[in-house]
């Protein structure tokens, strides 16, 4: 996935000379995960540059640059390090278009390695999507594979509105062949990544692969679960969500973020609103727990496991 993201940035820089890439360590070193590798050499240090450690400054500078007609693609080095920028993101990045009655677009892309699963240090495994999905004016995407990563990042950069791109760091090094192309579903469209009719598992990010594993395990027992990769977390693809529940009658939502007011709450509420009559069992949420993200040696007990996912699917199917 790193290569796909890198290609997306390269192509965006090449296609539109108003695109800038900046953030901490994105220039010379090419980013701590090498997502920006080689870009500074190729496009020069005017367009790809390192900043001081200053997340609020980075987000705020992107706002000012937008006033000056630039299209910033900024990196927050890790999920939790976007928190110092929250005021700028909520008060200005998200609201500036409204505040100026459409006169000033905020074509800002805020990338960050997100979620856990890499035995990282504290504050390196956060799932911050709730903060951004709840904030009107932002879009939020979370690709799970290289093809989506390429396309969604490019669409994010091209979007006149600010887009938060949550890159599942646990999938950065996942090997997968992919044609990198702009063709394909846009922001806001979920993908059914495995067919099934017993229940639908809604998920995103690194949990997509895990849910596929769970579905495979279940299939061995004759339980055929559909898996939907939401891909875009805001706006949610409520149509696909409702359709799948109408078709399968049962739903499980899987994510790494803590349960309370994690995205699963919104997906559940949406199912209730849009497909109540078709719902044959309570929606089950298989999520991180309502605790701080735990240390490396026990993070696997925090993250939704194949066992927990399959158990939840069996539960709703047996309901």
């Amino acid at each position, binding site marked *: 996935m790193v290569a796909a993201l890198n290609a997306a940035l390269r192509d965006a820089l090449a296609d539109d000379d108003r695109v*800038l890439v900046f953030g901490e360590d994105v220039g010379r070193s090419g980013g701590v995960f090498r997502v920006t590798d080689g870009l500074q050499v190729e496009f020069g240090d*005017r367009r790809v540059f390192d*900043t*001081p450690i*200053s997340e*609020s*400054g980075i*987000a*705020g*500078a*992107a*706002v*000012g*640059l*937008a*006033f*000056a*007609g*630039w299209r910033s693609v900024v990196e927050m080095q890790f999920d939790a390090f976007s928190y*110092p920028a929250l*005021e*700028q993101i909520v*008060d*200005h990045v998200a*609201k*500036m*278009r*409204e*505040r*100026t*009655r*459409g*006169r*000033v*677009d905020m074509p800002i892309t805020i990338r960050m390695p997100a979620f856990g699963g890499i035995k990282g240090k504290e504050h390196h495994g956060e799932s911050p999507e709730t903060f951004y999905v709840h904030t*009107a*004016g932002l*879009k939020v995407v979370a690709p799970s594979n290289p093809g989506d990563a390429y396309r969604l990042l490019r669409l994010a950069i091209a*979007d*006149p*509105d600010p887009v938060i791109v949550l890159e599942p760091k646990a999938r950065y090094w996942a090997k997968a062949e992919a044609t990198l192309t702009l063709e394909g579903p846009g922001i*806001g469209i979920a993908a059914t990544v495995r067919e099934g009719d017993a229940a639908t598992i809604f998920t995103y990010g690194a949990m997509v692969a895990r849910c596929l594993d769970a579905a495979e395990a279940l299939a061995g027992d004759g339980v055929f679960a559909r898996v939907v990769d939401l891909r875009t977390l805001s*706006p*949610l693809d*409520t*149509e696909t969500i409702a359709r799948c529940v109408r078709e399968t009658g049962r739903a499980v939502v899987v994510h790494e973020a803590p349960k309370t007011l994690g995205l699963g709450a919104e997906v559940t509420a949406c199912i209730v609103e849009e497909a109540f009559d078709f719902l044959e069992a309570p929606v089950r949420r298989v999520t991180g727990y309502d605790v701080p993200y735990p240390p490396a040696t026990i993070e696997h007990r925090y993250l939704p496991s194949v066992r927990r996912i399959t158990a939840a699917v069996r539960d709703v199917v047996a309901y």
Partner: protein
Amino acid sequence: MASEPHHWRGTEPRRVLAPDGSLVGDPDVGLGPDDLRAMLRFMLLARRLDRECIALQRQGELTVYPGFEGQEAAQVGSAMALGPDDFVFPTFRELAAALVRGVDPVQYLAYHRGTWHGGPYDPRATRFGPICIPVATQIVHGVGYAMGLALDGVRACSLAYFGDGSTSEGDFHEAANLAGVFGAPTVLFCQNNGWAISVPTARQTAGEIWKRAEGYGFPGIRVDGNDVLAVYRETREAAARAYAGEGPTLIEALTYRVGAHSTADDPGRYRGEDEVSDARGFDPIARFRSWLLAAGHIDDDLLAGWEAEIEEQVLTIREGVIAQPPPPVEWMFDWTYADPPSALAVQRSEVLGG
């Protein structure tokens, strides 16, 4: 003689005119008599309009309004020093600067009437950013904008206004540090009016604000913010450095907030009347007017003529403000996204449906 406002202590500010209007520097700051007169006229209009706004608020025509009486020189002097391509990022207290920059006051006041947030005027056309409430956040925008100017190789700068209290925020620091690192063509313009709501500058920081600049590697300047000529000159020089690629300047303009923080505030709870009446002895308009009179640039007839004109101007603005209806309710939805998601369209029709 009344004593200086508390926060003026310390390093002597740069001055052209002494508080009594006498010359202590070179009055040739690069402005001809017409410009000098225009400067005073802007200050007079600003003061009159400011008072009118307070009246409008009391009459229920505006929501909470933050007056700026006493700060006319700081705002008019700095705003006049900018060129047409320069871009201002204001706080919520820069109506005087907005007037100078040509922002339509009725549109500006739509903000305080509660008919729109941010910039009801066109920030691009006026090169005057949206009114900004979360203190210090706009300074970062100013720096980002300036970085953009530098990338484009445009000979222009940005200027962000902020108060003494705002300098305590992390965003002040991040903005200043970024400006230094990128050599951004920007002016960080602090109106130190002695108070941040109820907190005096001395409880806001133990240092002098202009001195912070050295730590960021660029010049810091302390100017008498009630001396419009000095403000003009220092801002102009800062802008000139920016144009020349010499990077940012921090200007601390010592001024005084004569009125309340806003119409919702009761300064009687935290500061004495003496302080305010003392400060009135340093009034920026009186100072400049007395020098202009002495220098023969204006006379009483001109002033009387202006007074009548300004009354009329303010009346027109007043009427314009009062005539502003609430915005169509669908505006709430129409600019959140360039291309609104379908769920939002549903919410929009729910509202319009009833």
